[in-house]
């Protein structure tokens, strides 16, 4: 699978590694829902580190679309809500 960390670029991640990332992603979502900024920062850092660790950088000159897109490393909960509010999935 190809994952993109916004502001960083694309990574190739083996399918079997996705489950682990899903858990980390779940923690990010829980923190966003709870509005817990400290938990969010830690969870996002863990998720992105996970992607960087299990993934290898995707070819720079490829025109492949990513399967999954992740928020930038310096994102706040507000930023993520803003990104997701693009077509109103999260109210407010």
């Amino acid at each position, binding site marked *: 699978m190809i994952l993109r960390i916004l*502001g*960083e670029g694309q990574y190739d991640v083996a399918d079997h590694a996705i489950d682990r990332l899903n858990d980390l992603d779940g923690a990010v979502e829980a923190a*966003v829902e709870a509005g817990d900024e400290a938990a969010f920062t830690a969870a996002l850092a863990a998720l992105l580190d996970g992607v960087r660790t299990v993934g290898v950088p995707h070819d720079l*000159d490829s025109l492949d679309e990513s399967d999954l897109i992740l928020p930038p490393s310096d994102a706040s909960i507000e930023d993520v809500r803003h990104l997701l509010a*693009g077509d109103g999935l999260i109210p407010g």
Partner: protein
Amino acid sequence: MSIMKRMSLIFRAKANKALDRAEDPRETLDYSYQRQLELLSNVRRGVADVATSRKRIELQLAQLEQQGAKLQGQAEKSLQMDREDLAREALTRKSALSGQIEDLRTQHAQLQAEEEKLTNAQKRLQAKVESFRTRKETIKATYTAAEAQTRINEAMSGIGEEMGDVGMAIQRAEDKTATMQARAGAIDELIASGALDDASSVNAGDDISRELEAMSSKSDVETELMRLKGLSAPAAPDAIEPGAGEGEQR
């Protein structure tokens, strides 16, 4: 997969929406390529802007550090002259400066990080724009308008995602730089107002300098007086000393 998946869907939808559509799908490729080149020059300008802000902060840091060193020197000199009150004043000002310097260092680190991010974004976009150009020429040369659509969609959505990402990176960098420029402007004003005592205004000096100067010129006078008194006591060497000095100069 919630956050990742939702974000991907939204991002893709936006990227697709932003695509220009022409009657002949092959023309779409040229339109898109033009926009890619524009974005590439935007990101280059973004890198230059952030670098300018970073250099401005470096300049301010140098000024403030110079001022800090000057205050330190004044404090030492004041103590040598037994003026603890002046030394205290100089050190108080120096500690106020230290706060500003810390703050500027943090900003400097942030700008450096932003500059690096944008430079990398530029590299990534550059590589993708190059391959898009090659792909575009191949598609135009090989396929009829009807056949081309699928290939075009593939090429467009891949680069559309990168363009969306780079566009966001530029926006974030601009926002950060704007905040820091406002603060840098405030510090420039502070320096200009003399509140931080601009070290470059040698003539004006500051009150601590003035007092130290007054004291040292006073003590110079005393030293000179003592010397003259000492010299005038014995009769003979009175004329010899200046003469000896002149002799060395010749």
